[in-house]
Every structure is written in structure tokens, then in C-alpha cells.
């Protein structure tokens, strides 16, 4: 079994990109990969508790997905942590800009992390950016 590390950087707040990031992280995390997810920019606000998780669609696929029983991206991220080897880090800079504290974020997220630590974690892994 592969033990490659998969690092997923999520910056977009669009449904298609959040969905694809969640799929890579969750399937990777339950398939013998260590998954490290870094949430920044427009992605982070979806992980504030009670936030509207209806991410806007970029195109036809996103609009179609919203009408079908596609697993919600937040559920997939949570399953990545619960069922697999995933850790999800909120970006400390994005938290500062949004003005949110750790306890306002979903409980399955790790403590806020800066780029220095993330880049250190990522240096021996694949990097996927959404």
C-alpha cells in the first residue's frame, strides 16, 4: 500500500472545486495516503459553523450536482478525518482577515496553521490545488 502524502490546497469557494478537493482528500485518506488539507481564501468561510454551505456553481456540472444526491463536500471532508488519515488546517491569515476564531470553525478542523508549517509538511508530498 502506498503511504504517499497528498497535500490539498483549497482556495476557491466554488462548488465544483470544493467538491473535487473533498473527493481527492477523502478518497486519498481512506486509501492509504496521508492527506493534509489547507483551507484558505474563499474556501475557508464555508467551514465557519452555521455558514451557508451552498457554494456557488461555476458551470453546468455544479448546477447539476446540486440537483442530485452527490455527497456534500463538507461531509466528505469530515469523513476524510473520521474514516481516514486526514488533517484539515484552516489558514491563519484567512482567519485573521475574516475575523473568525478557532471555536467558530467546524470541530473537525485542526488548529490554525500558517504557510511556513504547511510548506514544511508539504515538502515530501504531492500538492493538489483547487
Amino acid at each position, binding site marked *: *500500500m502506498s503511504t504517499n502524502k497528498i497535500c490539498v490546497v483549497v482556495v476557491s469557494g466554488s462548488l465544483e472545486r470544493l467538491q473535487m478537493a473533498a473527493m481527492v482528500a477523502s478518497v486519498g485518506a*481512506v*486509501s492509504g495516503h496521508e492527506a493534509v488539507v489547507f483551507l484558505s481564501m474563499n474556501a475557508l468561510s464555508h467551514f465557519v459553523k452555521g455558514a451557508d454551505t451552498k457554494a456557488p456553481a461555476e458551470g453546468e456540472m455544479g448546477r447539476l450536482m446540486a440537483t442530485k444526491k*452527490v455527497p456534500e463536500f463538507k461531509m466528505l471532508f469530515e469523513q476524510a478525518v473520521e474514516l481516514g488519515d486526514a488533517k484539515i488546517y484552516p489558514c491563519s491569515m484567512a482567519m485573521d482577515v475574516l475575523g473568525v476564531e478557532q471555536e467558530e470553525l467546524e470541530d473537525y478542523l485542526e488548529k490554525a496553521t500558517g504557510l511556513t508549517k504547511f510548506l514544511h509538511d508539504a515538502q515530501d508530498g504531492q500538492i493538489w490545488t483547487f
Partner: protein
Amino acid sequence: MAENKIVDGRGSFCPGPLMELIAALKSSQVGDVLEVLSTDKGSVNDIPEWINKVGHEYITTTESEGVWHITMKKAK
């Protein structure tokens, strides 16, 4: 004693049925046989791939009236 379990992933899209199977495996014993029901074609290719990759025992895939039945045994 080994059990047989049905994991109903019908109607869900990739990777929903796979994640449901993995959740069911967490609460299963070695030797249990799990049968995933899926209407998603992507999952029909992906689930056996996952079973083999992580080292469980893949048994069969059959199709009946638009529903695929993927059967495996928990090996560890």
C-alpha cells in the same frame, strides 16, 4: 461469527457508496461479508479497485435491474 451486511448506496454518487462501505467496515469484524448496492457506474469500477488496494478480499460484482451488487470480505 461472521456476518453478512448490506450497504445501501443506491442513488448516491461517487464517492458516496465507497465512503458508506468504509463506514460500515469500521464497525465490522474480520471475516464479515459486505455487499454494496450502487446505482453509480463510477463506483462500480472504483470500489473493487479500493478493495484490492487496501488489501481486503474482493468477491464479485453483479448487476440486476440497474443496481450493481459489489461483494467483499473484510480481511483485516
